[in-house]
C-alpha cells in the first residue's frame, strides 16, 4: 500500500505508457472495457477529456500570462477597452463549432447503445434491498446474488477482520455470479422489487436504473472471457454500498455446461422441499437467510432500529400466532418498508427463516416450520407449527453444524 501511495503521487504523465505500468492507469481512469460499446465510450471520454484540457490550457494560459504581465506592481497601466462585438462573436462561434464536432460522435455512440435489435438472449435483473436476482428467461434459471458472506462479516462496524486479504475485490465478491457466454448479444431487463437500484458494470459500459413497476433495458456483447465487477449505483438505503455485481463471461460450451448444472441443482432443491427437515438444518439456513434478507432493517440480533424498524426479538409477530408471522413475511405490510418475500425466497428459505426467527434472539416458541407446509400455505392451507419434541430427528445438540444461536434456541426449548 505504501508503494501505491507513492505511485499515486506521481503525476500521470511520468508513468510510462507501455508495458505493465499501463495497468496503473486502472486506478485513475475509466476502464476500456470488453465490449465494442465500452471501447467507444472510453474513446469518447478521452476525446472530450483532451478537448477540455486544450480549452483549459488556452484559457488558463492567457489568464496566468495576464496575471504576471499586467500587474500594477510591474507598472502596468490599465487599458480602457471594454467591449468588442467581433471578439464576442468569435468566442461564441468557436465553442459552438467545437461542441458540434463533439456532439456528432457522441450521438453516434448513443444511438449504438440504444439499439436493442438482434439480441440473442435475455436476462431479467431485479434489484432488492440489498441483492440482485438474475432470471435467465430463455433457460429458465433463476437465483439471487448477494455480497460474499466473509466480506459481509468484514464490513460490519469494527469487525476487526483484515481487509488486505480481499485486496481489490473487497466488497466486490458475491455468492452467486452471473454467468454469461461471450460473443452473444445479451439483453438485460432491469426492474426492482422495493426501491430504485442501478445495475452498473463499468467494463461493459452498462448502467441502468432498476425501477419498481417498470422494466428498463440495455445490452452487452462481451468479447473476452473474464470476471467483470460492478456495483449498485443508485442510493438504495442502508446497505447500498454492499450489493456488488460479478459477471463471469465464459465460452459458449462452458456456459452450456453451467446451464445444465444449474438445472439439475434446481431440480434437487425442489425435491428437498418434499422431505422433512430437522430443526438444526432449518436454523442453520434460517440464520443465513436472516442475515441476507432481514438483518438490513431488523438487525443481525433482531433488535431492530427503534422508531424505524421493529425488533423481531420478543415481538408479537415472531412469538405469537404462526399464521401472522408467515403472512407478514410472505405478503409484507403495505405502507411500510416491510417487503413481501413470497417470491423473493423459496419455500425452504421461508421455512428456514421463520423457524429461525421463532427460536432465536430469546424467542422460545420451539416452532418448526417445514418447507412443504410453506408450499401448501401458498394455496391456502393454514400452517400448523410442529414442536421439536414431536419430530423424530435425533438430539439437536449433537449436530456439529448447529450455529451458536441455533443451539441456544434449542436449549431453550428443552
Amino acid at each position, binding site marked *: *500500500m505504501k508503494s501505491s501511495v507513492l505511485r499515486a503521487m506521481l503525476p500521470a504523465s511520468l508513468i510510462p505508457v507501455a508495458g505493465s505500468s499501463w495497468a496503473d492507469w486502472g*486506478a*485513475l*481512469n*475509466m*476502464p476500456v472495457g470488453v465490449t465494442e460499446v465500452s471501447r*467507444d*465510450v472510453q474513446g*469518447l471520454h478521452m476525446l*472530450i477529456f483532451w478537448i*477540455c484540457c486544450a480549452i*483549459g490550457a488556452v*484559457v*488558463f494560459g492567457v*489568464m496566468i500570462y495576464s*496575471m504576471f504581465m*499586467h*500587474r500594477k506592481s510591474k507598472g*502596468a497601466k*490599465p487599458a480602457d477597452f*471594454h467591449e468588442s462585438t467581433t471578439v*464576442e462573436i468569435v*468566442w*461564441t462561434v468557436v465553442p459552438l463549432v467545437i*461542441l458540434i464536432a*463533439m456532439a456528432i460522435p*457522441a*450521438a453516434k*455512440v*448513443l444511438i449504438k*447503445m*440504444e439499439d436493442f435489435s438482434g439480441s440473442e438472449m435475455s436476462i431479467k435483473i431485479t434489484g432488492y434491498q440489498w441483492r440482485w436476482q438474475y432470471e435467465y428467461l430463455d433457460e429458465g434459471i433463476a437465483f439471487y446474488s448477494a455480497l460474499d458472506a466473509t466480506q459481509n462479516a468484514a*464490513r460490519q*462496524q*469494527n469487525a476487526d477482520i483484515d*481487509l488486505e486479504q*480481499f485486496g*481489490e475485490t*473487497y*466488497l*466486490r465478491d458475491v455468492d452467486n455470479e452471473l454467468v454469461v457466454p461471450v460473443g452473444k448479444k445479451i439483453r438485460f431487463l432491469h426492474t426492482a422489487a422495493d*426501491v*430504485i437500484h*442501478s445495475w452498473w458494470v463499468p467494463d461493459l459500459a452498462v*448502467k*441502468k*436504473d432498476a*425501477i419498481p*413497476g*417498470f422494466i*428498463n433495458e440495455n445490452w452487452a456483447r462481451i468479447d473476452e472471457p473474464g470476471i467483470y465487477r460492478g*456495483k*449498485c*449505483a443508485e442510493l438504495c*438505503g*442502508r446497505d*447500498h*454500498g*454492499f450489493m456488488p455485481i460479478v459477471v463471469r463471461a465464459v465460452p459458449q460450451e462452458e456456459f452450456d455446461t453451467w446451464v445444465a448444472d444449474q438445472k439439475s441443482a434446481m431440480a434437487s432443491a425442489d425435491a428437498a422441499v418434499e422431505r422433512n427437515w430437522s430443526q438444526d438444518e432449518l436454523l442453520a439456513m434460517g440464520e443465513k437467510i436472516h442475515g441476507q434478507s432481514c438483518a438490513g432493517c431488523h438487525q443481525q440480533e433482531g433488535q431492530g432500529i427503534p*422508531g424505524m424498524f421493529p425488533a423481531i426479538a420478543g415481538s408479537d409477530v415472531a412469538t405469537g400466532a404462526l399464521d401472522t408471522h408467515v403472512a407478514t413475511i410472505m405478503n409484507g405490510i403495505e405502507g411500510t418498508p416491510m417487503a413481501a418475500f413470497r417470491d423473493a425466497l423459496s419455500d425452504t428459505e421461508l421455512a428456514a427463516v421463520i423457524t429461525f426467527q421463532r427460536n432465536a434472539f430469546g424467542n422460545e416458541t420451539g416452532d418448526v416450520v417445514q418447507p412443504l407446509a410453506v408450499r401448501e400455505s401458498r394455496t391456502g392451507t393454514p400452517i400448523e407449527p410442529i414442536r421439536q419434541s414431536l419430530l423424530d430427528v435425533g438430539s439437536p445438540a449433537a449436530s456439529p453444524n448447529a450455529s451458536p444461536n441455533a443451539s441456544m434456541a434449542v436449549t431453550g426449548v428443552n
Partner: protein
Amino acid sequence: MSSHEDVVHHSNDAEGAGYGHHDHDEHGPAPGLMRWVTTTNHKDIGTLYLWFSMIMFFIGGAMALVIRAELFQPGIQIVDPMFFNSMTTMHALVMIFGVVMPAFVGLANWMIPMMIGAPDMALPRLNNWSFWIMPFAFTILLSTLFMDSGGPAGGWTLYPPLVLQMGDSFAYVIFAIHFLGISSVMGSINIVATIFNMRPPGMTFMKMPMFVWTWLITAYLLIATIPVLAGAVTMLLTDRFFGTSFFSASGGGDPVMFQHIFWFFGHPEVYILILPAFGIVSSIIPTFARKPLFGYDSMVYATASIAFLSFIVWAHHMFTTGMPLAGELFFMFSTMMISVPTGVKVFNWVATMWKGSMSFETPMLFAVGFVIMFTIGGLSGLMLAMTPADIQYHDTYFVVAHFHYVLVPGAIYSIMAATYYWLPKWTGNMYDEKLGKMHFWISTIFVNVLFFPMHFVGLAGMNRRIPDYSLQFADWNMIATIGAFGFGFSQLMFFWIVVKCIKGGEKASGEVWEGARGLEWTVASPAPYHTFETAPNIGSATLTR
C-alpha cells in the same frame, strides 16, 4: 473612470452628509437584542442572513468531516451506514439551503439597495419574515437527527420509493423544506420588487451592476422553481400519509415522474447557486484590474441565456433512468449548449483582466481562484453532458468532484470574495490582509487536495454515497480526507478574520478600493444605518459598470 469620480463628487456636494451620514437618532437601530428580532433594515437583515450562513457552514462542514472521517480508510470504523447516509443527505441540504442560498440573499440584502441607490428593500416587513422563518425551519430539519428514527437518509434528492422508507422524521423534513421554500420565494419577490421599483431616475436596466442583474434573474428562477419543489414534496407527503400513488407503480404512478419534477426544480437551482457568484466576480475583477468589465451587455445576455437553458436540461441528471433515444439526444444537446454562454462569461472575465493594472488583494485572489476552479468544474460538466460517457460517470465520485468544484471553490469562494470585498464597507475597518491571503492560499491548496483525487476514483469506478470501498481506492480517499480536514479547519481562520475586522482594524475610506466603482462606494464606511434616503443623481454616468 473620470465620469465616475464626477458623479461621486457631484453627489456628495449636492447632498453633503445627506445619505452618507444620518442625523436623526429615532431612525437608528433599536437597542438590545430585540433590534435583531424586529428589524426591517436591509443592512441588519443582510447581517442576520450572513451570520446564519456562517453558522450553518460550520454545521454542514462538520457533517462533511464525519463523511470524510469514515472514508479515511476502508472498513466501517466510525458510524453506522444509515447515519452515514443521513450525513450525506443533511450535508447537502444544509450547504445548499442553509449556506449558499442564505449567504447570497444576505449579500443581496446588504448590497442591492446600496448598489442601486435605494433607501431599503421594497418590502421591509416581508424581509424580516423571510429571514426569521429560516432558523425555525433549520431547527426542525436538524432536530430530526436526534429522533429515534434518525434524520433523512435517502439523499437530498429525496427520490421515492426510498424516501418513503424514512422513519418518523419524514413529515418534519417535508415541513422544513416547505418553510425554506416560503422563505426563498418571499426573499425573491422582495428582490424583484426592489429592483423594479426602487432604482433612482437614470439607472436603466442596462446600467445596473452585474450583481443586481444576476440576482434579478436568480430571483425569477427561484419564483419559478420553488413552487415546483413544493409540489413534488407535497405529493410525497400525500403518497406517504393519504394513500395517493403519484410515485408508486402499484397505484398507477411512476417513481421517475418525481425525478422529472424534482430536477425541473433542481437544475435551475444549480444556477440559483452560481448566478449571484457570477455577479460578485463581475464586480470584483474590474475593481482590482482597474479596468471596466469587458462585454457588459454580453454578460447580461449570457446570464439570461443560462437561466433560460436551465429550464430545458433537467433530464441530464437522469440519463440512466431509461429515457427514449430522442429524449437523451435532446437533453445532451441542450446541456452542451450551456457551455456557450458560460464560456462567454469566463472569456469576458479574462478579457477584463487582460491589459489591466492588477493587484491581488484577498477579494481578487478569491475571485481569480473562482474563475480557474469554477472553469475546471465547468469543463468536467461538459464531459458529463456527453450522454454515453455520462452513463459511466453517473453516480460516481467523478460527479461528486464536478459539483464540488463548482460549489466550493465556485459558489463558496465567491461568497468569501464578496465578504472580503465589502467587509470594510460593512464594518468601517480593513480586515487583516495578511491573514486573508493566508486563508486563501491554505484553503486553495487543501480544497484541491480534497476534491481533485475524486475525479480519479470516480473514473476508476468508485460510486458515490457509499460508506466503504474496495482497497484500490484507499490511497486517494486518504488524501481526500486529509484535504477535507485541512480545508475545514482553515475556515476557522475565516471566522476569526471576520470577527477581528468587526472588532477593529485600520479604518477604511468610503471608496475602500482604488479601482472600485458603484454607488455603494460613495457612502461612508461603515455604511450608515440608513443610506440613500434621497435618490442619488445618476445622470448619464455609467458609474456602475
